[in-house]
C-alpha cells in the first residue's frame, strides 16, 4: 500500500499531503514536490493530443532507490501523487489505478461540498478516511 498520498492544486501547491508517520515527513514532501517535474512534462506532452483521449493516469513517474512514485492528473489539472515502497513488489499497476480512481471520486465529493472553497487545503474527514485505507497501516 501507499506510504504517501498527496493532492496537488492546479497551481502546484499542496492541497492535501499525508505520509506514514513512522518516516520523515519532509522527505515525502520533497519526493512529491520533485515528482511534479515529471507530471508537468507528461501533461504538456499529452496536452497536445485531443483532450477527450487523454488518460488521467500517468503511470510510474520515476523510480527512486526506495520508492516508486505514481501520478494522476484530473481534467482540471489537479494532480494526485501516490508513493509506494519499492520493496512492495506485489502491487500491480491495476491496483494503483484503482487507488487513484477511489481518490478521484472522493476528491470529487470534496469539491461537491458547497462549504468547500476550491483551492483551500482539504480537511474533509471522509477524504481522510479514504486515504487512511490506502496507506500502509503502521503497526
Amino acid at each position, binding site marked *: 500500500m501507499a506510504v504517501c498520498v498527496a493532492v496537488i492544486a492546479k497551481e502546484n501547491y499542496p492541497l492535501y499531503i499525508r505520509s506514514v508517520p513512522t518516516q520523515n515527513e519532509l522527505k515525502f514532501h520533497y519526493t512529491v*514536490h*520533485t515528482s511534479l517535474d515529471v507530471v508537468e512534462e507528461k501533461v504538456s506532452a499529452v496536452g497536445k493530443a485531443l483532450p477527450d483521449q487523454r488518460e488521467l493516469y500517468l503511470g510510474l513517474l520515476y523510480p527512486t532507490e526506495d520508492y516508486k512514485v505514481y501520478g494522476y492528473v484530473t481534467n482540471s489539472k489537479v494532480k494526485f501523487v501516490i508513493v509506494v515502497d519499492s520493496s512492495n513488489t506485489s502491487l500491480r499497476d491495476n491496483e494503483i489505478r484503482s487507488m487513484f480512481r477511489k481518490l478521484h471520486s472522493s476528491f470529487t465529493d470534496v469539491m461537491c461540498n458547497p462549504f468547500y472553497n476550491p483551492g483551500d487545503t482539504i480537511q474533509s474527514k471522509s477524504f481522510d478516511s479514504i486515504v487512511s485505507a490506502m496507506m500502509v497501516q503502521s503497526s
Partner: protein
Amino acid sequence: MSPTQWDLPPELCCRPMAFVALTGLDVVYNAVHRAIWDAFCANRRADRVPISFKVLPGDHEYPKCRTKRTSYEWYIPKGILKTGWMNKHLNLVPALVVLFYELDWDDAQWKEKQSECATKVEIVRTSLQGRNTKVAVVLIQKKTPLPPGEDVVASERAAALCNACDLSGKSLFVLPHTDHLVGYIIRLENAFYEHAQTYYYNEIRRVKSHKEFLNKTTHQLLFVRHQFKTGFFSELKQDTQNALKHYRSAYGLIHELRAHETNMLEIKTLAGFINYKICRLCFQHNTPLDAIAQFRKHIDLCKKKLGSGDLAFEHTAWMSKQFQSFGDLFDEAIKLGLTAIQTQNPGFYYQQAACYAQERKQQASQFCSHEPNVTYPLPDPLETLSGVLDFYGQRAWRQGHQSIDPPDPDREKQGVLALQMKERSVQHSELIIALLSNAVAQFKKYKCPRMKSHLMVQMGEEYFHAKEYTKALKLLDYVMCDYRTERWWSLLTSILGTALKCSYLTGHVKDYITYSMELVGRASTLREDQKSRIEKNLIRVLMNEVPEEEPNCDAGSVRAAQGLWGERLTLAAGNEFTIEVQDCVPFIQCKARFLSPSFHVDEPVQLHVYLRADCPHPVRFAKLGVSLSNQEYNQYCLVEEACKVKDILEPSSQENMCLVPGKTRKYCFKFVAKTEDVGRKIEITHVDLMLGVESGRCVYLNWRGGGGDAASAHEALQASRSFKRRTRLPGQQLEWDTVSVQASTMVISRVPRISVQLRHEPPALTNEMYCMTITIQSEEDTVARDVCLTAGLKPGQDANLTQTTHVTLDSSEGCDDAHPALLTDIVVGDLQPGQKMEKKLYVRCVNTGSRIFLFHVSYAISSTVEGKDIACKCHKVRDETVTIDTVVPFEVAVKFVSTKFEHLERVYVDVPFLLMVDILSASPWPVHLVDSQIQLASNMAAVDLPQSQVAAVVLQTGECASECFSLKCPPVQNGTSTVAAGHYLISWKRCVHPLTCQPLLIIVTVPVVLPLSHPLPPRTSELPSFGRVRESLPVWYHIENRTGMVQEVDVSVEPSDAFMFSGLKQVRMRILPGSVQEMVYNFYPLMAGYQNLPLLNVSVLRLPSIPSQLLQRFLPTRIFIKVRPPLHQHEPFLTLCYVMHYIHTGC
C-alpha cells in the same frame, strides 16, 4: 582529490589497446628515427588501428614469465585478480616487439650487418623468454625499393636475413625513408596490428586451456579470474562482443562464490569492476537499456552484501561509488551522442550516489567516533611490504587468506580500528556536495527544476553540516523563493529553519531578521512554541541584544557566533535594515486603501492602512508611513511614536502602536489634495513600518504599492471565492479578508455649479449662418471668475468636417474659410452669484452631414476645505456634446427646353430656346427667396430682358418654384464644340431670420450647351397666337440657305381636316447660298380649339441626311382657333370657294 581506495583503477577505466613495443629507434639523437616515431604517435585518430606504441631500448627487460603450472591439483588460489595484472598486459608485456634496423639491400657490409641484426633479434627473444610475444624486424632503407620480384638481390638477401634471424617472411618489413613516410607507417602498423591480434588470440586460447584442470570446489576464484582475463584479452583484441560475453559470465560466476565477511569486500570490488566493464561495453555498443538493466541487477544483487557491521560505511562508500561511476559512464555516452530523458538521466545516479555518501557519513560518525585515548594501531595493519595489495579488494593484514574466519582475531580488530580511524579523516561533506552538484547539473539539463531545487537544498544542508555557513546561506536563499512561489510551506519552513541557523552562526543580522519574520508569520508551519521562541529572539535583536542560540548547532560555531553578535552590538553604524516584503511572507500583513477611486479637489483624500500581526506575541512598532507618488503628501500619512526600549516586550493591547495577534488594526489618514494635482493620479508607492528604535537597531518593513507580500495575492483570490459570510465583528474589528487594496486614486476637479443652456433650431441648412444661443448661469455662492467658454466642432472627428465647418461670434460679417471650427477660451468675464449671460454663436456648415459640437465652460472659484483656502477650477461640459445635422435648403434643377417646352438635347444657333429652373425646397423651415438672377456667358444672349419671376416667394417644405428664361445662342466660331451658358443665382434666407440678416446666395452653374448650326433652318414669322374659325390666317415660311452651295429643296404641304389653305401645295425650288426663300400660305381654319396646322414637309435633296422631322421641329405645329362671331356669315364662304378654285387650278 587524491584517489581513494574506492576509486576504480585507471587501467580498468581506459580502453584497452594492443601493446606494441618498438626497439632499435634512437629518438633522441637520430632525426630519421625521430620522424618515424612521430609518424607512429602523431594523429592517432579513430581511423587508425588501436595500438599503443612504446619505444623501448633493444635490451629492455620484459616482466619475467613465471614457470607454467602443469597441474592445478594442489593449487589453492589466493585471490581473484592480482592488482598488477591489467597494467602488465596494457603497458608491460607487448603483443609484438619490432626491431628497427638500418640496412639497405645493397649495403657494402651486408654480411656483418646481417649478423648484427640477428644478434639483436636474439637479445629481444631472450628477454621475452616464455612469452608468446612475436618479434618483427623493420629495415630502414634509404632507397626506394623496386617493385617486388624485380630486385633479385633484394629477395635473395631478404630470405637470407629471415633465415639468420629465424623470422618468417611475414615478420620482415622494409621501411624506405622517403617522402611517403606516413603512408608506409600506416601500412606497417596495420601489419603490426594483425600480429598483435594473433598474439591475443593465442593468449585467449592459453587462458581457456586452463579450464580443464580446474575443479569447482577449490578453484572457484579461478573461474572468475579466467573469464575476466579472457574478456580483457578480447578487449585488447578489439573483439568487444566476445569481451562482453566473457565479462557477463565472469559476473555470473562471481556471485556464485561463497561470500563471507572476510572476502565480501573482494567479491564486491571485483563485481564492481566487471559490472563497470559490462556497462561500459553496453554503452559502447549503443545498447544503453542493457547497461541500465545490468546496473540495476548489479545493485539489487550487491545491495544486501553488507559485509562487516563495524565497517558498514565501506559498503555505502562502495555503493556510492557504483552509482557515481555508472553516472559517469552514462554521461560520457551522452557526450558521444546518446540521448537521455527526463526520467532516465545520469542525474538520478549521481543523486543516489550522494544519498549513499550521506549514509556513509552517518555510519562513519556512528562507528568512528572513538574515545580520544584510542590511538592508531602500531604497527600499521594497512601497511604492506610492497606498499600495494597483491589482490584487488583484500585486507592488507591478511592478504591471500581465503578461509571464512580471520586468521588472527587481534590483528583483525586492529585492522578494523585502523580503517575506522582512516574513515574519520575523510571529508564526507566534500564528497556529497561534489556528487550533488553533478546531479544538479544533470537535472538542470533534463528540465527538472524542482529536483534541482531539492538537490540544492541538500547541498545547502550539507554545507551547513560542513560548517560552511555562508555558502549554505547562499544556496538556500537562492532556492527559497521557488518553494515560496509554489506555496510549499512545509518545505519552505524547513529551509528557513536551516537558513536561520546559518544566519545566526554567521551573525548576519538582516538575514536573521528576515528569516525570523517569515518563520514567525503565517507561511510557517512551525509549532506555536517554536514561533514564540523565534519571536522572542527577534525582539531581542530589535532591542540590540544577542539572541539566544538556535538548537542543534555545532557548539564551537555557536561560541564563535556569540562573539560575532557581541561585536555587532557595539557597532554604531549599519543597524538600520529595510526588508522588501514582496519577496517573503512576513509576520505583519499590510493593506492600504484609498476610500474612493477618485476624490474631488474640494474634499479631503482619505486613506486607510490596515495592519495585522500573525505572530504569537503582540508586537509594537515605532512608525508607520505611507509614501505617495506626490511626496508632499507623505507628511500627512505618518504615525510615529518613539517607543521606549523596554516597551517592546510588554506591550499593552490598548495602545495605538501595538499589534495584537489576529486582530486587524486600522489607521486613518486624511489630506487635502493640491490643485496642481487635479486630473492626476495619486499612487501609494510603498508603505513603511518601522520596528525597533531609531537610536538602536531598527527594521523597516517595506510594502510596495498598497501592501501585499509573496502570499497575499493568492489569499485574496481564495477570499474572493470563499462562501464564508462576511460577518461584522464586534466593535471596530474588521474581517481581514474583506479589506481590499486600493493603491491609487484620482484627484478630479470640483463639481461645477453653473448651468449652461443651449437654444437652436436644428437642422442647420447648408451654408447658412446657423445661430446657437448659449445661456450661462452661475449657481455658485461666490463670484465665478475668469469664466471661459469653448465652443465649436468637437475635435477628433473627421478631418473634412474641420475644414467644412466655421464658427464665429459675429453675425454681421460673413463666415468664410478663414474662420476656425472651434473657438477656444472665449472670455466671458466674471459671473456674480445667480447672474445669467447669453452668447450667440454662428456656425456655417459648407456641406451636409451630422456634426458633434462641444460646449465647455470653465471658471475659477475660491473654496475652503478643512480650513484651507483653495482656488479651484471648475469645468462644465454641457450635456457633453450636441449633434447637429446639416441639410441643403433646396434643390435646384436647370434644364433646356425648346420654345415648345420640348426637352432639348442640343440647341441650334440662332434658334431661341428656354432655360427652365425648378427650385424645390428641402428645408424643414420656410425659405424666403429674396431674388434670383441669371448671369449669362458672353456667347449666350437673352431674347429679351430676363427678370426674376420667383423673387420674394416663400417656399414651404416640399414646395417648388419654377421660372424660365428665353435664350438664344448666337453663331459660334467653327471648332467650338461646347458653350458655357452662365450661372443662375438665388439669394435666400430663412423666413424667421430678422431683416438684418444678410440673404445667402446660391450659385447654380447652368450646364454647358452644345450649339449646332443648322444648314437650312425653316422658320415661320409672325404666326399669330390664335386664329378664328373661317377667318383667313396667313402664314409666312422662310427657308434660309446657310450653306455655301445652291440647295434644291422639295416643299409639300399635307392636307389637314381642320384647315383649308391656299399656297403652293408641292413645289421644288432652288435657293441660292445666303438667300432666304419666303413662302406664304393662307390657312383657313374650319374648326375651333387646338388644331394641328397642315404639316409642311421640307426635304433637301442634296442633304438627304437631314430628315424632314428635324426641319419640322422648328416650325409651329399647332394653333388655337377661336370661334368666329356670328356676323357676316355668307360672304366669306364665297371667298373661300374662290380660293379653293384657285388652289386647284393654280399650279
